[in-house]
Structure formats: structure tokens, C-alpha cells
């Protein structure tokens, strides 16, 4: 193992030497590392003087952690430049082929580049933070507490890994440095939004959410590294020379995967959709498991937290809720408003939203939405119990008739998202990343159109025309 890691270090070491011999990389890093803490310190001083006039102590307390986050971030931006050109730059300079022809494994090459992309900017970032902290201590400003310092350290590291891992994925898949630089906005924009969110959390002092942000950024960075390695193909690094969006090829690849070799609708359902469904079957079982966990979580959360929520609620709010609860049994008015098309569109939109959220987050956000949807059922179950109503009859009359179609549809729709995320981080030999994504999109479309939509259609008809009647009968009895 040591000899294998030695090659990782060898690749990184060579690049590091190269970097330290290039003033174009060193100069901005030195400026950002050495000048920015002074600028930030001056900014903090001015802000303190200004805010002292208004006695805004809370903001002052948060200013130092916020400054640390910003100071730590700026040197990391250099990592983006280094990482973006890591593979595609070597390709353009013609130095990639000798190294690809050498006995180095893909992962060794990949981690070597990752290491060098992260190491120098991160070192500069820590140095910059250190400098700033010295200035803070000399001015007798309040130092952030240790947990916040740990959070800031981890956040800075997580940002570096996130940006570098995303940049390397782009670098492997791009055909030129120019294309890679243009695609960098797909990193810069989400990271900028993320930083704004984290800054808000810092000012709020919401440590729990910040821990979640650290974990989330780390998970996405790890998934990105996994995606990068899974789709690292020496062939594509050498083969592709020009950027062309080949719409014909995109459509042909999608359509041939969507249609398969089916001659009729029957054979499409039986063979093409059937085989896609068999592929996602493990994900369906997993989605069922997640559904069970979500039901329990929804139920448990309501059971544990309702009394606390009620205790903290104002009398006016409670009165309003009481009023709404009184109105609840009057289903006849709802019956007139909720039509089958409305329910169908609503549910279809929910499943599509789960897919879209999952598409851009390796299925993580999609599955979270799915859990919320299922968790609501558990929550309602618990609420009914708390209201002293036996939930089972209502559940059997109000949920089961359409739920037997709607819940499997939601489960299958979410299982495809889960499968999508798993497949994208799995190596697919002989296929480009584009081909893999198109095949996965075709699989999703097959299952969505062939299975989820019909199930939701049936569910909507039952929910609109049968469920209200059953519920009214139940309530009347």
C-alpha cells in the first residue's frame, strides 16, 4: 500500500515543484495570504468603530468568525485555477500522454492531482487565518470559542475539497482549459450561495446548522471525488478535441435507450421498462426502507415535540389552530375544490421535483424531499392520536384506497433518483459521463412515463372521487 501511495505523492510532488516555480501561481497566493488579513483587520476595526456608536455588540461578536471564514476562503480560490487545469491543461500542453502511458493507476493520478490542488491553497489559507488571529489577539478583540474555531477550520477545509474535487471533475471532462474555465461558474455560483448561507448561520450563531453544513459540504466533496474517479477514462482525456453539443447524438442515445428494441407498446412495457425496473429493484427496496424510517421519524417528531410547540405558542395562534381543527371534518367543501387533474398534477410535480433535486445533488436532496413527503403521513398519524382520534379507521378510509397507488408511485419515482445517484458514482467502463447520464435519464423517463404517471393517475381519480366519500361515511358514522 505504501508503494502505491508513494506514486500519489510522486505525482503531487512534481506538480508542487512546478507550482513553486511559477510566479503566476505564487504571486496571487502570496498577496491573498499576506495582504488580506491586514485588509480584513482594518475593515473589522472600522466596522467596530461604526457599530460601537449603536451598541451593536452581537454583530461585533460575530464579526471575527465571519472574517476568519472570508480570509480562509480567498486563498482557496487559487485552488480552483490549479485544479481546473490539472488534467485538461496537461492535455493542451501535450504532457498528459507520457504520464498516462506510464504504469500509474487512475486513482493514483487522480489523488495526486487532488492533493496538489488542495495542499498549497489550504496551507496559504491556514497561514492567512493564523496571521489574522495574531492581529485579533493583539487588539484584545474577543477570540471565537473553540467549537466555532473548529467549525471554521473544517469549513475552510471542506470548501477547498469541494471546489477542488468539482474542478477536477470538470478538468477531466473538459476538452480545453478555456472550456474548463467557462464551466467554473458551476462551482463558483453554488459555493458563493453556500458561503452566504454559512455567513448567515455564523451571524445567527446557529452552530447546529453549521455542523450540518460542514457535514453536507464534506459529503458532496466525497461524492464528487467518487464521481471523478468513476468517470476517469484515459481514452476520453486523449480522444476528445473539440467542444460540440451534438444534439443529434444526444437525442439518438437517449431515444435508443428509451425505446430499446421494442416493436410494440406491449413489448416495450414487458422488455424495456421491465428490464429498467429490474435494474432499480434494489433501490426500490431501499426506498421502502427509507419510507419506513421516515414514517417513524414523522410520527416520533410530532409525538415528542407537539407539547413543546404548544407550550411556546401564543394564545392567539392556538385559537387559530383550534378553529382550523374544527373546520377539518367538513370535507364537503374540500371535495368540491380538489379535482382529479389537480391532484394528479400536484403529485406528478412532487415526483418530478424529487427527481430534479436529486439530479443536482447525487440524489441526496431528492431523497430528503421524499422523506419529508412520507414523514408527513407519520406526522398526521401521530397528530390524530394526540387529538384522541383513532388513526387507523381514518388511515384505512382516507389514505389506503389511493395510497396503494400513490405511495408505490412516490417510492418508485424516488428509487430511480436513488439509483441515478448510485450509478453516477459507479465506474462505467467504456462509456463517457455524457453517455451514462443520458442512459440514466432514459431509465428515469421510462419508469416515470410508463409506471409512475399511470399509478398517479389512478391514485388521483380514487383520491378525488372515492376517498372523500369513504371519509365522509366514516365521519358520519
Amino acid at each position: 500500500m505504501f508503494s502505491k501511495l508513494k506514486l500519489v505523492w510522486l505525482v503531487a510532488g512534481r506538480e508542487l515543484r512546478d507550482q513553486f516555480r511559477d510566479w503566476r501561481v505564487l504571486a496571487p497566493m502570496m498577496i491573498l495570504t499576506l495582504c488580506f488579513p491586514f485588509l480584513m483587520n482594518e475593515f473589522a476595526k472600522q466596522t467596530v468603530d461604526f457599530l460601537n456608536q449603536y451598541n451593536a455588540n452581537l454583530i461585533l461578536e460575530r464579526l471575527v468568525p465571519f472574517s476568519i471564514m472570508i480570509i480562509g476562503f480567498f486563498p482557496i480560490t487559487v485552488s480552483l485555477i490549479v485544479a481546473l487545469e490539472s488534467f485538461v491543461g496537461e492535455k493542451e500542453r501535450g504532457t498528459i500522454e507520457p504520464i498516462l502511458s506510464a504504469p500509474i493507476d487512475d486513482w493514483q493520478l487522480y489523488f495526486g492531482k487532488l492533493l496538489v490542488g488542495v495542499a498549497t491553497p489550504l496551507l496559504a489559507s491556514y497561514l492567512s487565518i493564523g496571521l489574522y488571529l495574531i492581529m485579533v489577539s493583539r487588539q484584545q478583540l474577543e477570540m471565537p470559542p473553540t467549537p466555532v474555531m473548529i467549525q471554521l477550520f473544517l469549513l475552510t477545509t471542506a470548501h477547498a475539497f469541494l471546489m477542488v474535487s468539482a474542478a477536477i471533475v470538470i478538468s477531466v471532462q473538459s476538452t480545453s482549459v478555456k472550456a474548463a474555465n467557462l464551466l467554473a461558474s458551476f462551482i463558483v455560483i453554488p459555493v458563493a450561495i453556500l458561503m452566504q448561507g454559512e455567513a448567515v448561520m455564523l451571524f445567527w450563531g446557529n452552530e447546529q446548522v453549521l455542523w450540518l453544513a460542514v457535514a453536507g459540504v464534506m459529503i458532496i466533496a466525497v461524492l464528487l471525488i467518487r464521481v471523478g474517479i468513476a468517470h476517469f477514462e484515459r481514452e476520453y482525456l486523449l480522444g476528445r478535441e473539440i467542444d460540440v453539443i451534438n444534439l443529434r447524438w444526444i437525442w439518438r442515445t437517449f431515444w435508443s435507450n428509451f425505446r430499446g428494441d421494442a416493436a410494440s407498446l406491449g413489448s416495450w412495457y414487458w422488455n424495456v421498462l421491465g428490464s429498467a425496473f429490474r435494474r432499480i429493484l434494489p433501490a426500490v427496496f431501499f426506498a421502502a426502507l427509507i419510507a419506513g424510517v421516515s414514517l417513524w421519524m414523522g410520527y416520533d417528531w410530532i409525538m415528542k415535540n407537539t407539547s413543546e410547540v404548544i407550550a411556546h405558542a401564543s394564545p392567539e395562534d392556538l385559537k387559530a389552530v383550534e378553529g382550523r381543527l374544527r373546520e377539518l371534518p367538513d370535507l364537503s367543501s374540500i371535495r368540491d375544490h380538489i379535482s382529479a387533474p389537480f391532484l394528479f398534477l400536484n403529485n406528478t410535480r412532487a415526483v418530478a421535483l424529487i427527481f430534479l433535486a436529486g439530479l443536482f445533488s447525487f440524489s441526496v436532496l431528492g431523497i430528503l424531499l421524499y422523506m419529508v413527503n412520507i414523514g408527513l403521513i407519520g406526522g398526521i398519524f401521530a397528530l390524530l392520536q394526540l387529538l384522541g382520534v383513532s388513526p387507523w379507521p381514518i388511515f384505512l378510509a382516507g389514505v389506503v384506497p389511493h395510497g396503494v397507488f400513490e405511495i408505490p408511485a412516490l417510492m418508485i419515482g424516488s428509487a430511480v433518483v436513488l439509483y441515478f445517484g448510485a450509478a453516477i458514482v459507479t465506474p462505467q467502463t467504456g462509456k463517457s459521463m455524457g453517455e451514462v447520464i443520458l442512459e440514466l435519464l432514459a431509465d428515469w423517463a421510462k419508469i416515470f412515463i410508463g409506471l409512475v404517471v399511470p399509478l398517479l393517475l389512478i391514485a388521483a381519480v380514487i383520491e378525488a372521487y372515492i376517498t372523500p366519500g369513504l371519509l365522509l361515511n366514516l365521519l358520519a358514522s
Partner: protein
Amino acid sequence: MIETQDLSKQFHDFMAVDGVNLSVQSGEILALLGQNGAGKTTTVRMLTALLHPSRGWARVAGYDVVKNGHDVRASVGVLTEQHGLYMRMTAIEYLDFFGQVYSLSPSARRARSDNLLEYFGLAEASRRRIGEYSKGMRQKLALARAMMHDPGVLLLDEPTSAMDPESARLVRDEIARLKSTRRTIVICSHNLTEVEALADKIAIIYRGRILLMGTLDELKNQVLGAAEYEVKFAEAWNSAGLELPKDVELLSQTPTSLKVRVRRPEEMNPQILNALSAKSAPVMAFQQEARTLEQVYLKVMADAKGNGHVQ
């Protein structure tokens, strides 16, 4: 050492290499000739396990290029189309880096890089940045890199391009020396004189297919026909009554010379000389007409383009 069967590579709709069959033994040099984009580099890249064949298979140094890519790469030395040097490194650092990649010991790395730098005349410049090197020096260094781990198989894309005649000669000598040490060598080149001097076998590739493969003599016979010989006389001589052997074709005749086509020269040429001697012909010279690889190559290419198809 190198064997391929139906080796093919398709990029989307484009067939870059189509059904290539090769067999190159230890101590043999195969030259791949063809226009730019004919499929030479793609073939070499498949032999280096950089590209996966779309069809067929290839074994290099006993390893399958698909199943044992890592072993193939460890056994092969490659000189790529672009030299691919790191410009901020010195030659010593560069060779040492690749020596480490190929798991050579520190002493072996030092000894090997010193030898190669000395041989290619780069010893004096070994501590200068590669960026300061001339084109020829860079090419020599890239060749030294390919030889650094003393590989059993060498794949050389344009080994003497951009070199001055002296350096090119040096490289040719080194390739010939490597051949004598039972290495298997594949050269892609546009330099036909170099190929004539070095190659045991020549393959002409056109649009991904091998049009013709064999030794230089085989190619010449196949493309240009049997060898032609010219007899020159010291003075005007009347050849009436001269009886040439049956398999010898008289092509042209003047009072001071005659030209013949001979199918089996080793057998027929002595008979021709005997017939001339019997008639007391004043033979001054008997020599084979020059037939170059260039003639073969140009004819094959012209035929291929004229036919619009191959094979």
C-alpha cells in the same frame, strides 16, 4: 512480443482503425507508414493500453491490453507524437521522475539517466530547464524517457522528427542497437529513408486499414513488380542473337545498354551474365535499378485513392 487480431477502434461514427492484424517478434522492427490521420497513433495508443479496442484484441509483451493495462504500460516505452516534457524541470529531474514512476531504485535511476544523457549528448545541459532546450534536444530527451526503464517493447512515434542529421543518425544507431538486443520496436514515421534503413517489416495504413505489409523486398516485388537490372556496355554492341533465359523479360535495348526484368535474380542473373559472356559482350556494369520505398508508398497511396476503397 506484439500480436494483434482484428484490432479496431471506432470513435462514434468514425472508424479510426479497422481490423489490424500484426505480429512483431523480439528483435524485429515494424514501421507503420501512412498519411496523417491514417490510424497509426490510434494503433499505438491501443498497444499502450491507452485506448480500449472496439473490436479484436492485442497482446503486448505477453499481456492483454484490456485485461492487463497496467502490466502493458510497465513493459512498454513510448515516444509520443508530442514530446510531452515538463518545461520547468531539468533533464535530470525529469528522467528521475519517470524512473520513480517505473519503480527503478535510486542508484539505477542515476546510472540510467547519466548513461542516456551522455549518449544523447545532453549531459552538459542536464541541469538546465527543459524549456530552454532546442526542439532536437527535447526530442532526444523524450526518447531517453522512453528508454529509461529499459523496456522490452518500444513504440516510437516520429523518433527523429525535428532532429539535425547528426542527432537523427545517433537515434537511428540507438534503435538499431536496441534491435540487436532482442527488443520489439514499432516506429511510426514519415521519414521513408529512415524506415528503409531500420525496418524489418513495413505496414502501410490507409483509413485505418493495413493495405500492405511485409519486408521491404516483398513490398517492392508486390507493388513495383520483379526487380529490373541494367547492363551497360563499354562500347556499342550488337545484341542480335543474344538468348536470354526464359524467365527474363527484355524491357529496353540500346547499342550501349539493355534493361531486363528478372523474377528470380539469384537464379537468373548468373545465367544472364553467362549468356552475355558467351556472346563476348563488352559488359561494363550490371546493376539493379534503384527502387525506393517512396515509390512503393506513393504507388500504394495512389492506387488506394484511385480505387476509393481498400484491400
